[in-house]
């Protein structure tokens, strides 16, 4: 009996899907949720006949890739947040891609100079304001958040969330560390409550009257509007593109890289080319209300109605370089405390 059981287990273990290396496939390590990628990957398979395989996790995939070394089955890594992408470059886990198609699709400031990563979408870090309690034009920059009139009126998620860390990094890049720290202290002094929850929760908090201003990524708002049950909440807020009239709104990216060890390199490059193409970029914009990285594809529908976004031209690399300073600065201010 015990032997039979052991045999059954052994068979079942070896029968589970092994890492695919056969032709006609591409293997993806993704820091983005698989269901968000699904429509894109399906379109890719429809067009090319290449099957896609995904592992999604929020952490640890870079370590897995690193340890698997030359035998890693992963062909591409899909990431959000420039700092995380930069980590792959620094650990020398990703390879250069030189594809005319991709270089034409993705503007220079949204890709690595040697093609070690490419942005696929951008997302603005916006200020949401209460329709009832904040007048239009009352706030227009990140710097305004420290104004004393907002005391007890601002909500944000944890300062340590990558999106907030990147915003602080950009403040360091523009104003220097000392000024950035003053700024963050100022924001903290105006908080209505301890940082908590996700970006959607901050929009909810405005609808509830807990606060009047909140920081959040654009697509969370878009996705709330698309959800019947959440729409009434989202409709209570206006959105502001901060610093639209000076340096531009802080943006972060989601991106893709080819791995050093990619066993299906040609397919991987095809995937990168496809994802940067207008048809795929349109899916990104429509399904997840993000801003396409390909300038040929204009935001559609709802996202277009929000008005034009003027993105900060600060190089993404510089934001990544400031990450550690930003994290320490956030600790010093004790933003979450």
């Amino acid at each position, binding site marked *: 009996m015990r032997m039979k059981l052991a045999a059954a*287990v052994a068979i079942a273990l070896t029968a589970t899907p*092994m890492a695919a290396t056969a032709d006609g496939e591409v293997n993806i390590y993704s820091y983005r949720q698989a269901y968000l990628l699904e429509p894109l990957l399906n379109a890719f398979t429809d067009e090319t006949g290449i099957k896609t395989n995904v592992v*999604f996790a929020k952490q640890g995939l870079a370590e*897995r890739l690193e340890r698997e070394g030359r035998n890693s089955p992963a062909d591409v890594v899909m990431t959000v947040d420039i700092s995380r992408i930069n980590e792959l470059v*620094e650990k020398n886990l990703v390879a250069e891609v030189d594809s005319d198609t991709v270089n034409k699709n993705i503007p220079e400031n949204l890709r690595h100079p040697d093609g070690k990563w490419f942005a696929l979408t951008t997302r603005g870090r916006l200020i949401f304001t209460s329709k009832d309690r904040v007048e239009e034009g009352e706030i227009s920059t990140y710097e305004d958040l420290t104004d004393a009139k907002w005391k007890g009126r601002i909500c944000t998620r944890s300062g*340590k969330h990558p999106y907030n860390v990147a915003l602080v990094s950009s403040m360091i890049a523009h104003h220097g560390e000392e000024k950035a720290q003053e700024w963050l202290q100022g924001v903290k002094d105006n908080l209505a409550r301890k940082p908590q929850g996700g970006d959607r*929760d901050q929009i909810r908090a405005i609808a*509830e009257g807990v606060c009047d201003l909140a920081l959040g990524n654009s697509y969370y708002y878009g996705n709330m509007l698309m959800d019947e*049950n959440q729409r009434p909440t989202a409709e209570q807020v206006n959105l502001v593109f901060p610093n639209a009239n000076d340096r531009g709104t802080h943006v972060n990216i989601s991106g893709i890289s080819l791995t050093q060890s990619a066993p299906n390199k040609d397919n991987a490059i095809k995937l990168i080319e496809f994802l940067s193409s207008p048809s795929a970029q349109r899916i990104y914009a429509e399904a997840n209300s993000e801003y396409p990285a390909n300038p040929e594809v204009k935001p559609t529908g709802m996202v277009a109605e929000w008005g034009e976004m003027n993105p900060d031209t600060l190089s993404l690399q510089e934001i990544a370089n400031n990450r550690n300073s930003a994290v320490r600065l956030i600790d*010093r201010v004790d933003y979450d405390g």
Partner: protein
Amino acid sequence: MTEVVSSANPGLSQPLLAKRTSKRWMISALITTAIVALPVFSVLYLALFPDENIWPHLMETTLPRYLTTTIKLMIGVGILTLIIGLSTAWAVTMCEFPGRKFFEWALLLPFAVPAYVIAYVYTSLLDYAGPVQKALREWFGWQSAADYWFPEIRSLEGAVLMIGLVLYPYVYLLGRAAFMEQSPSLFAVSRSLGHSAISTFFRVVLPIARPAIAVGLSLVLMETLNDFGTVDFFAVQTLTLGLFDTWMNLGNLGGAAQIATTMLMFVVILVTLERYSRRRQQQFAARDNRDPIHRFTMSFPRQMICLAVCAVPLVFGFIIPGATLGYYAWEYFDESWNPNFIRNTFNSLFLSGTAALTTLLIGVTLAYSRRLHNTRGMQVLMRLSSLGYAMPGAVLAVGVIIPLAGFDNWFDGLMRDYFGFSTGLLLSGTAFALVFAYTVRFLAVSAGSVESALQKITPSMDMASRSLGHTPGKTLVKVHLPMLRGTLVTAALVVFVDCMKELPATLILRPFNYETLATYVYQFASDEQLYHSALPSLIIVLAGIIPIILMSRSISNSRTMT
């Protein structure tokens, strides 16, 4: 008082040993421990190579808060789980009241609810826009959040409640098993010597049950220490948040491993202290299955109190979250139904079942080897093999990748050099890696409970069996395992349900396109879309219920009840 229940250690090992056979047990225990401890040692190894020294910065800024919050959270959850777990275990074991049989297994149900799910559910119920506050506003005519005070669910207290509600079953299960194994005559003796029922509970029953309760409580505390989902969502600043911050935001895996190591030491000290404090106690219960438990017959009001004590944790830990999930699942059914559910459910059941059997097998091997060979070395081995539980899942996952991928690449290199072909990755990224990770993580559960139950079997049993010519192995199968049946089933159940809920290690280690119920739930929950994951969450809970009912029956049947 302790003299009643304990005696000096009679030195089980020496007279029993036929040297050769016991050596075999020891060697197998050694090898098993070495393999199981690999991931933990990998993390310790990482801790030697931080990118930079994180401690000065941490100490200057957030460390004091991380530490105090962690300790407060652990104390809070510890007290809450002890109160709920012991009171309910005592009630269903010793008191007769309406619904007792139902509560026997139903009290385990909250265990099937992952902490991060219950946290999401209560937040959606209790926050401003939720039905509770909405109703209050309508009754009292309040206009906005400024008009009234309402307890903040996203707080340390909230986290204690959430984690406590789903973890108390550890204490309940082990406490109940211990209460059931106690000889009723001890209780009768205490009563006849003039102690009240309550005094007997604290002076006789609890001290005897202490090893089992300590195992349950230490599992609760380790799981609390490792919780990331709930504390992250509630913004409760524990050491685990600091660890992930160091890893993900500062990109300093070595520094994160140092924090994990610190947490590990924390746990080791805690467990050692507990053991040290009862070092002089050696407890043997000459359990007699023919001697039935006589439950108290009680007045009606007292029966109602028992009922209430059992109903409260069930309602808050299971019925309310279950009903809420059910409601969302219904509302969002069209968006959330997915034909892959059956495959995901199978994956979860298969992985959890395999891991539960493996951990049980190894747990018995280790605990029994220690019984045969009760030396300091064996004790250290036992502790080493249990360390995986004291480490956050994601960190442990990296610890699992290191030896597995290391072996794969070494073997691949060998094959390339000598035979000219590549074997690629044989273990890394397969279901084997997942089962291995689960085993490493949850061995503490099975080894701990088997060990504590074995300790209660008097060595005279071994002596009798061995003097009749049985080998240690045969003695185990013929004597110990039948006596341990309840404990074995309990241990397997706990590991099974734990594996069903396991998330961080599964995410990192799984093969391509491989979803368990937990990973499927997570991809929505992590995107702030709990509604879409209500249905699979419900399936995790339901899939956990079936084994809970089956196994709870088997535990009850292990002892004749009257």
